[in-house]
């Protein structure tokens, strides 16, 4: 061996450093900006060349390893080493969520791959894009194609228009003239106290609508009691397959959601608001950017009070502590609780994390009264729920319905019944995580806490309706493959458990005991809800659908003692 002509490790390319400096001129070098900076590079260059990341590490004074960890964790970043060729200019992402699979996404993806020049276009699958009511969905560049067919996608490819589809949204003036931002001003002027407002939310029974269902007023009180500085984070990382209600509210009422966020910030005395928007909603990025600018222009919030941040393709970042890690520029790996994010969240400070829809309801409840909201439920349940319904129904979409409604009622009253020619086999009450219930349990009230005795939960109320024409086994494989792809990899039971479960489902004979035991360690020992809930569809199937599985040719042996 002879002397090295350069210091240890990858050499810094001065040209790449200059490009990085130019591109990021005027931006912060703080580590929490890493995702934002990676986005700028990926947007500009179409991928992340190693030499630019080397330069970025130097520019941000971050370890190369830290940059690489984040760049390779998120699906929307394409790290390309010096000796690798960059991806084609255009990427077609075929949504692989269960709803899209039911609508023929697999065949669509195969056909698309056959029809394109791989040097110009790459075709890949991607998790739920939150447009399940128009399944199957394909994303061409940053433009979504609903009810996609090869021909429709080809039209878009040829049009060369890959920017997000435009969204027509109510602007500040319109929202304002309809009484918007009054709660915020009332609160600031002291016409309404935080306590009164919290009491109103308590009376309404408003709970965290991201899926956990924690009472909003209690979260406020917890965070308020912690020392300043405190932060508010709005979780717009809606990623639960089959869920698209947050997109619905952000497209139709961005200012109402932001008012809810500002009110929350006022309530807990926050130093700043961070809105974490999933990267699968590129059109909304512009909506929110403009809406925030309108708020600043109107003087309702100073510049630099509301930060809009982009996710980068990671389901796990919908988990609040993973989301916070991501906001800090790191891979989205959930934190251990305790401490709860209300005590130590963003930048180690007390943080109120609220789902978009939760924020949306806050001004509404103040306007119409907590009583009004609470009155809406059926079967003794309180409030309204925004059901994202997809799958085999006539009118899929977001349906705002009383809490406690049953699946059968929801389908019949709101969705125009089952889709033509389809008969109910079962339904997923809470996206991929919430398990699967059979048609025989279509009369259960849908709400927090009502489905748990049956091994399921409502979560974000993403309802996917299955029909007897659907293959259950394929659905299970789809769901477990999703969890395996999206596991952050931090803890053993989830990282390896999801992978092994997928491999076990590929076997001809299913050993129920083995599956149940694996499910048990995942549920018992995973750090966060992803790993804990990942076996739910499999457990539910062993419990409710053994006959169906047998009919599909799956031999199930053994007792699943865990259920």
């Amino acid at each position: 061996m002879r002397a090295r002509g350069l210091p240890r490790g990858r050499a810094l390319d001065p040209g790449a450093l200059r490009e990085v400096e130019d591109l990021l001129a005027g931006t912060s070098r703080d580590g929490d900006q890493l995702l934002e900076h990676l986005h700028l590079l990926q947007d500009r260059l179409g991928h992340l060349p190693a030499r630019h990341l080397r330069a970025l590490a130097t520019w941000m004074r971050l370890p190369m390893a830290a940059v690489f960890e984040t760049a390779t964790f998120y699906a929307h970043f394409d790290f390309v080493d010096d000796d690798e060729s960059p991806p084609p200019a255009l990427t077609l992402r075929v949504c692989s969520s269960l709803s899209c699979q039911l609508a023929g996404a697999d065949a669509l993806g195969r056909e698309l791959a056959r029809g394109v020049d791989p040097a110009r276009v790459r075709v890949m699958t991607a998790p739920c894009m939150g447009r399940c009511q128009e399944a199957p969905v394909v994303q061409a560049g940053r433009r979504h194609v609903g009810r996609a067919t090869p021909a429709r996608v080809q039209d878009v490819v040829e049009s060369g228009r890959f920017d997000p589809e435009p969204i027509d949204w109510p602007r500040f003036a319109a929202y304002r003239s309809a009484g918007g931002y009054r709660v915020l001003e009332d609160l600031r002027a002291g016409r309404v106290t935080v306590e009164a407002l919290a009491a109103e939310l308590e009376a309404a029974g408003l709970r965290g609508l991201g899926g956990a269902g924690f009472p909003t007023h209690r979260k406020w009180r917890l965070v308020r009691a912690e020392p300043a500085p405190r932060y508010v984070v709005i979780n717009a990382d809606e990623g639960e397959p089959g869920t698209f209600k947050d997109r619905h509210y952000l497209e139709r009422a961005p200012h109402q959601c932001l008012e809810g966020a500002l009110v929350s910030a006022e309530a807990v005395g926050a130093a700043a608001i961070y809105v974490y928007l999933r990267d699968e909603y590129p059109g909304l990025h512009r909506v929110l950017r403009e809406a925030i600018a309108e708020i600043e222009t109107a003087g309702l919030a100073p510049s630099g009070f509301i930060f809009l941040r982009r996710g980068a393709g990671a389901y796990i970042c919908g988990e609040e502590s993973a989301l916070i890690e991501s906001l800090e520029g790191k891979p989205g790996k959930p934190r251990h609780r305790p401490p709860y994010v209300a005590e130590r969240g963003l930048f180690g400070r007390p943080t109120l994390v609220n789902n978009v829809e939760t924020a949306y309801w806050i001004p509404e409840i103040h306007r119409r009264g907590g009583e009004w909201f609470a009155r809406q439920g059926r079967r003794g349940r309180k409030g309204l729920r925004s059901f994202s319904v997809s799958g085999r129904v006539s009118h899929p979409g977001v349906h705002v319905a009383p809490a406690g409604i049953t699946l059968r009622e929801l389908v019949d009253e709101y969705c125009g019944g089952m889709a033509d020619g389809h008969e109910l086999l079962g339904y997923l009450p809470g996206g991929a995580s919430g398990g699967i219930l059979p048609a025989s349990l279509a009369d259960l009230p849908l709400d927090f806490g009502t489905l748990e005795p049956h091994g399921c939960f409502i979560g974000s109320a993403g309802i996917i309706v299955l029909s007897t024409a659907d293959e259950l086994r394929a659905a299970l494989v789809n769901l477990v493959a999703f969890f395996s792809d999206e596991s952050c990899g931090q803890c053993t039971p989830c990282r390896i458990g999801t992978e092994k479960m997928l491999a076990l489902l590929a076997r001809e004979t299913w050993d129920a005991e083995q599956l149940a035991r694996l499910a048990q360690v995942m549920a018992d020992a995973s750090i966060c809800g992803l790993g804990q809930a990942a076996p739910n569809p499999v457990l539910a199937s062993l419990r409710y659908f053994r006959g169906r599985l047998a009919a599909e040719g799956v031999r199930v042996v053994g007792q699943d003692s865990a259920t």
Partner: protein
Amino acid sequence: MSAPLPPEAFELSLDGRSVVARAGETLWQVARRHGETIPHLCLRDAPGYRADGNCRACMVEIEGEKALAASCIREARPGMVVRSTSSERACRARADVVTLLLADQPPRTAAPDRSSSFWHTVEALGLDGDAARRGLPRREQGAVRRDDSHPAMHVDLGACIQCGLCVRACREVQVNDVIGLAHRGARSQVVFDFDDPMGESTCVGCGECVQACPTGALMPAGLVDATGRGDSAATDRQVHSVCPYCGVGCQLTYHVKDDRIVDVTGRNGPSNLGRLCVKGRFGLDYLGHPARLTRPLVRGPGVPKALDPDFDPARPLTHFREASWEEALDRAASGLRTLRDEHGPAALAGFGSAKCSNEEAWLFQKLVRTGFGSNNVDHCTRLCHASSVAALMECIGSGAVTASFMQVLQADVAILVGCNPAVNHPVAATFFKQAAKRGTKLIVLDPRGQALGDYAYRMVRFTPGADVALLDALLNVIVTEGLHDAEFIARHTEGFEALARHLRTTTPEAMAPLCGVPPEEIRDIARTYATAERAMIFWGMGISQHVHGTDNARCLVSLALATGHVGRPGTGLHPLRGQNNVQGASDAGLIPMVLPDYHPVGNALYRAAFEELWGARLDPEPGLTVVEVMHAIHAGTVRGMYILGENPAMSDPDVDRTRAALARLEHLVVQDLFVTETAQLADVILPASAWPEKDGTATNTNRQVQMGRAAVPLPGDARPDWWIIQEIARRFGLAWNYAHPRDVFAEMQQGMDSLANLSWQRIDRDDSVTYPSLAADAPGEDVVFADRFPTASGKARFSPVLPLPPDEPVDDAYPLVLITGRQLEHWHTGAMTRRTRVLDALEPEAVASLAPGELARLGIAPGGRVRIATRRGRVELAARADPLMREGMVFVPFCYAEAPANRLTNPSLDPFGKIPEFKYAACRVEPAGGSDLV
């Protein structure tokens, strides 16, 4: 009736019994204290390792909670009801988690470490690897996951369980920031930088990751065979000791097999907390190098004294012949004795070694003083911190550090000037980096950039040699802006008014052109340091190795005194000492002007005390220093020398002249491990002991006296240094009769107040004791001078200075500044490190570092060969393009015999410390032709 609980303690229920927990303890720790070690893989129960709770092997059940909890990361709370072994659910989760991991592991017989903690856990849980692999589908193993690109460490990611301990080791414990856990889910993978082969990454080889890895996925390369199988437990014994390399003094454990050190692990010593660097962990095989001296040698008849380029140290019999110890000792001693008898005591001089023990240093200076009859005894402190010690003695009455480097963790601000700890004190650097990550503002001042710059509040690359200009400007700001600590100055110092007057002209504006630092930056640094609640100053040879080295250090003392940043936790002055025992060797009196504990030889009172202790007359005249001895040889005054473990033929400035001097000696005795460049000029060579072959204490930079223990036998006929010194002494008629170093230490305690309350037994028991220690059962003082300084008045003294130019400024003929120093991988003159497999593989060849722009201007490609010339000589070596270098300078390490940097250096001395100006020589760099592009 239960006993009262200690404060901040509470009770909880563990497996049905009530146990006491302390605030902040985790459930795992509570269980451990009560006798149960809950299975764990990703937890490393060692200082600095945060629990991460990811492997889930330590689950417990907590009443009222739905899921199980990881006991390693869950804090105990009063009244918790916890079930560990009594929870079937928890026990099953533990077993199932490990089974999941087991399914993808290689069989134990094929594992990179069949004695890893992973396999111990598998065993403890009663799991069967084969059954696990049968029951669960095995992951498709992709391409080969082994990586043997690093000479010291073997990587086999097939055995990795993604527990992240290596990431914490690399990023949080050592803060070397190389390892990451990339990708996600089942594709999660340990990576180096951008998934580079370890050997091509920025890895600095500290080996913390292999020490932390619970599976052997990361293993010392020496412990696995060619097929990648290994066993960390295949050793005969373990010996606890301290590292032989730098002044940090890391405690370590040698793992010995067949009387060979096959592995080294860090131990929880006060200055290293279990950490080591590449040298300490992977650099100890020089003991068994084929060139190791195992028999005494005497110069062959008629062999001329010169460095023969064809001489091979592994085959010395071309120039020397073997001799018995009796003959060699007689020749060695009689040659010296004759010169003394014929020409008087001034004809002899001795260089001791900062690499040997305190006891050996003591014996060596005692031999010179009582046997040779003069104070002509010195050692390499003369080349490193003599000027710092001169300034410290003059200003505060003590030459040692006022606070340990661990105090940086309590400092708000730390100035690091003229030092590069990531290279020269790597484990101390981990403390600096950790402090920076916790919020301590590091201000790094140096002509060269460095790794710590990435963690610094400010990294200032100032003009070489302009230290005083920069430091005086800082002092000017502190005084003119009233940032000084008037109360501290009044109570504890003298001479501030003179300092203030003196500094009137050294404004930032006036000094900026000299030091190349903008005035506003100077002001910010001064304000940041002065207004901090607690601030420290660390420095190295960038300060001391100048003709104005003492002035540089005086400025640093003035900064600390003016701001009152001394004597409190998180404050102080800390010259980072170089050699493992340079502090101890200096304390023990290996210095020509002072007796042990720095008592001037001219002081009749102290002289009398030592005369009584040693039963001999002592010379009241100071002796000659290292470089002065060389002059005296040329002048014909010094005719014979005894050199123990020093290599002046490589380490001294203007080395051609030094070599000529050594060759001129009528009698030269060299005691060393190898035939060094110095030994090649000897008449008699005595085969000595390496550090792991003998017992003895060493004192590190933090004033910690630590126990070194023999781990392996001496090779061949080599002998402990203390034994050899004693044999020479006996041949000088001295009636010495030390049976073991502990006897020597007992005598040292009689002569040195600094060692009060530090008995050999105590050091042996505690491994490390800090001096001063005020009682036999009181811990030593980590921070000193809280009340008074050890001066006659009890006050410290300001010593104002003005900037002086370097001795040899650059000019048109020699336009670049040459700076010499060390590399991470190589120690001093390379005698040891270039004979270790790993270190030699990592830095195999002489290399000069220049700024990429400078190299481009010279038309030299990275890796190309350059010729560097000064007024004293020239060398040829490979060039490295280093972005951390400033243009206008070149850096050359002095460890390479094939391109000795000290052929180039300037022997001019600092008038007070007598230290040469290694950090500034005017030079010329040009292409040498031929390319070594790698």
